[in-house]
């Protein structure tokens, strides 16, 4: 099968996803437009060579609706011949979009594609698209629906992670993110966001707090205790996980992913198009996988997605040099490390969403780019990128530096 090479990866910095966040004044179409412009301009290619663009977006309604990808393609001044698709696999949408873009290349459907994602959580809040799953009694009952925060606390309870464990993980995430910024580790990918008069509105991840320590996190109240106890979600979770007496609510704003705005794009193509356009391949796709897992605990999918991707690549976990798992909640990463016996020094080496935020539809493409950069910086060979997903799913991609 045709190899899919990564020729470039760009992302916006992540702005605080609130009305006082720096990217709040920028429309999601603009965020998507600017990363598409960047891919075209910094590689000095004719955008007409880019055949298809897949962008993840988790709340594709309002100004993110109507296939935001196609709107951004036209807005970026790409020729009308470039098609666009909007992808929703909840939190892994960005990675799934990259995988779709890569799959099109591998399958011989296209020579050059872009995978990426966009989410302005400050302008189109999470949940804006509604959905039957938690709302329709027939599906909420059948799936024992609970919100993700309850699932994250359930993971901590079931697998024995204390409040100190998850807080300590969060402190380290902040430390690593701050170090990465101070050492310019994201410089290759970061594309400052401009406003309508061309001035930069944001050039760094806005939510990193280097000063975070156990004491400051210790002062925060658990976010999901009230929800779990007063609205019945704890009881629903325990109906499925009957061996647990009580859910230990350990997650809060400081050890969960931040709500932010941002966009990312990854340029993918076959070997020939690279040669034709004079692009240098930076990495190649070794394997891609998506799985479904138990929907109530919801966020344990990465373990199974990673195993599936490794099996498809004919690799062993020892063959992976760097692991990147989206920090949706601290317990998700701790459970993944526990399940696959991964050392903390090999995973999320540059910090993650606890420090820098999780712009739902874009995150997968962002951390994909982070790994491409980090393989080059560290001289390592292989990386596995994965995310936990709503309703119990997991997506994983293995890349190898070339």
């Amino acid at each position, binding site marked *: 099968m045709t190899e899919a090479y990564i020729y470039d990866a760009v992302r916006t910095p992540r702005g605080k996803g609130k009305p006082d966040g720096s990217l709040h004044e920028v429309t999601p179409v603009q965020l998507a437009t600017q990363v598409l412009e960047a891919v075209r301009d910094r590689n000095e290619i004719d955008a007409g060579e880019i055949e298809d663009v897949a962008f993840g977006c988790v709340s594709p309604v309002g100004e993110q609706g109507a296939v935001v990808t196609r709107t951004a393609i036209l807005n970026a001044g790409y020729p009308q011949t470039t098609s666009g698709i909007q992808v929703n696999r909840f939190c892994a949408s960005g990675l799934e979009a990259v995988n779709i873009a890569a799959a099109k290349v591998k399958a011989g459907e296209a020579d050059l594609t872009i995978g990426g994602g966009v989410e302005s959580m400050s302008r189109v809040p999470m*949940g804006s698209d*509604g*959905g*039957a799953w*938690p*709302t*329709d*009694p*027939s599906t*909420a*009952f059948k799936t*024992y*629906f*609970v919100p993700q925060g309850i699932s994250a606390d359930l993971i901590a309870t079931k697998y024995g992670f204390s409040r100190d464990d998850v807080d300590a993980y969060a402190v380290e995430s902040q430390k690593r993110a701050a170090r990465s910024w101070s050492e310019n580790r994201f410089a290759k990918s970061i594309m400052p966001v401009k406003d309508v008069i061309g001035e930069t509105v944001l050039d760094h991840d806005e939510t990193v707090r280097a000063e975070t320590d156990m004491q400051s996190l210790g002062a925060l109240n658990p976010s999901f205790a009230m929800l779990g106890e007063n*609205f*019945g*979600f704890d*009881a*629903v979770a*325990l*109906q499925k996980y*009957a*061996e*647990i*007496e*009580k859910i230990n609510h350990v997650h809060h704003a400081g050890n969960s992913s931040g709500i932010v705005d941002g966009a990312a794009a990854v340029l993918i193509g076959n070997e020939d198009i690279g040669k034709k356009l004079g692009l240098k391949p930076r990495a190649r796709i070794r394997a891609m996988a998506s799985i479904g897992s138990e929907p109530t605990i919801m966020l344990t999918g990465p373990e199974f997605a990673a195993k599936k991707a490794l099996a498809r690549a004919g690799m062993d976990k020892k063959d992976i040099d760097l692991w990147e798992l989206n920090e949706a909640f601290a317990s998700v990463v701790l459970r993944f490390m526990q399940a696959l016996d991964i050392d903390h020094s090999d995973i999320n080496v540059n910090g993650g969403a606890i420090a820098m935020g999780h712009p739902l539809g874009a995150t997968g493409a962002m951390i994909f780019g982070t790994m491409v950069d980090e393989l080059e910086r560290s001289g390592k060979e292989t990386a596995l990128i994965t995310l936990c997903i709503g309703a119990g799913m997991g997506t994983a991609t293995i890349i190898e530096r070339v």
Partner: protein
Amino acid sequence: MSYETFNVDVDSDGVALVTIDLPGKSMNVWNAELMKEFSQWVDSFCADDGIKGAVITSGKSSGFLAGADLNMLGGGGAGGMVSASGKEKFEAAFALNAMLRKLETGGHPAKALLNGQAHAKPVAAAVNGLALGGGLELVLACHHRVVADNPKIQLGVPEVQVGLLPGGGGTQRLPRLAGLQNAAMLATQGRPIDPNTAKGQGIIQDVVPADDVVAKAKEWVKANPKVTQPWDKKGFKYPGGAGPMNPGAVQFHVASNAMAQRETSHNYPAVQYILSCFYEGSVVPFDTAIRIESKYFLKLLSSAQTRNMIRTLFINKQAAEKGEQRPEGVPPTEIKKVGVLGAGMMGAGIAYVTAKGGMQVVLLDRDIEYAKKGKAYSQGIVEKGVSRGKVTKEKGDELLARITPTTDYNDLKDVDLIIEAVFEDPDVKADVIKRTEAVIGQDVIFASNTSTLPITGLAKHSERPDQFIGIHFFSPVDKMPLVEIIPGEQSGDRSLATALDYVGKIKKTPIVVKDTRGFYTNRVVPPYINESMLLVTEGVKAALIENAAKSLGMPVGPLALCDETSQELGLRIAKATAKETGQDPTNEPVYQLLLKFVEDLGRKGRKSGGGFYDYPEGGKKHLWPGLTEYFPLADEQPSLEDVKERLLYAQLIPAAHCFAEGIVSDPQSADLGAIFGWGFAPWTGGPMSHIDTIGVDEFVRKAESLAQKYGPRFNPPNHFREMAKTGETLYKSAA
């Protein structure tokens, strides 16, 4: 045209007054006759241009209309149309909806109403008493609703309590009038509200003096010759919003889905279907919405679960309370004054429920302080009730005034019934029986509340064994709805009749059981609790055991129940049983567990050192973390389903033995006793209903396989093996 079930009186203005008054019934209900006639009347009302409008009221002082006749639904109805096609069953289930919809639209198509091209004739409800279920649904289908100003009038849709949903438009009109939240409280819990609350929620428009309801309703009809329901007008919006894109409604649906699961443990589909009717009905036109409702209604009506629930929780419960087991030919006994002997926990509770039932109580104990303390128990309940507004101060005081504490047996001389609740010691009881019989009237029935001593044995101490009987209450007496009545070998008909009359007066549910050790409920509960302790000794997680029981539909876990009844009592019983049977219990795991708890650890029960749980002061109880130190967890934990099955069969098997041995004479009593005695999963309709539903042969097969795996205690009674062979069922209409 004249009708049997209601009277139609048209006044000079052309307004028809329809007075529903079912002949020979104490209460109006939707039965086949009323359905048929009312439907005919609706047709003629819509067709007759001479009739300008209508007021609907009731001719009964007992109320407006109490809902559907559950005997009709339980016995047949749409659920009983076994051979009918899906479409025919639907049309039968839709009949009430179709009729009420015609009443509110005047027979006009929704589109014509929406465009203002047509209007309905005004119909007002003049509600002079309770309107429940299909009764309230008739009221809701009227354009205007006037209710008598009486806080005792109950307005509600209680269908959920027997596993049904309001199938006459209730799931659609209530949320459109009162909003999703209010409607969900009414429909998923089934608890009624009073007229003013209903008015506040927008369910009714007017609360007026009882004598004015018809006049006020008529006045409105005459003032509003052309009407359209709000939901048939353009731009209609639910109060508070609705629909899958409305943030408030989404929040409501997400939260109510979770809370309903918490409350039902997935055992009561009616609750889910009610919420589905709300959810699905809120995005479609009204005519579609009521069809959706009828489909969910039909799904419930045709289920074995609903049939079981209706049969046990409604039909058989009412029959038992009306004295079905009462011997014929014994005139009703008048019980004005009851002597309660012993003012301990049970005696105090019995005194309270007796006084609450309107009877005078002589509460006797050895020491006047004990007797007064027994009365103080009632005072505590009354004060709590007054502070919560459940009872007026006046009524509470009257209740307390009916209880007279005493130490003097002479005070018993004019009582109509004795209930003895003294210490469980045959000698003490013998003495009390003698002293009491010396003063009471010759024909007074003497009842013992013993839970452990055979009635026939106690009756030997009586001069009048034919007037001696057991009335077994459960603790706490004021909360537990069941009473076991135990005739001894010599108990006469009059003692049984009197006991049943008394239980009727205190509004509890009686079952008649045979005089054997433990009677019925105490034959079943101990093996069930034992099974849970055995699971602990096998290293099964305590949380899994407790959650499995809750998942089955038990109100509390068996380990928590064990803490309540106390490990100390458990050990005492185990020792007594060993003594009696001559079997050495030393090697039995549960015996060892109890010994460890009581003698080594000092965890004797909830009130003494804790048990399987810790009971922190002012905090919630939680499982004792030290348990696994003494009973280490097994590496392999059983599945939830396996634990559920063991806990279920640990109740089904002894209940089946009680039935097979005639301790309970019929499946009805076995089911009632289980649900109201120890809280056996009400969704099943009781253990016998459940065995019928899973099939006697399947029950036997499963029991035998459990016996192979876990021991002979799971072997089914031979009687059930025989039934499995012949294909016999416990209830005649079980198929």
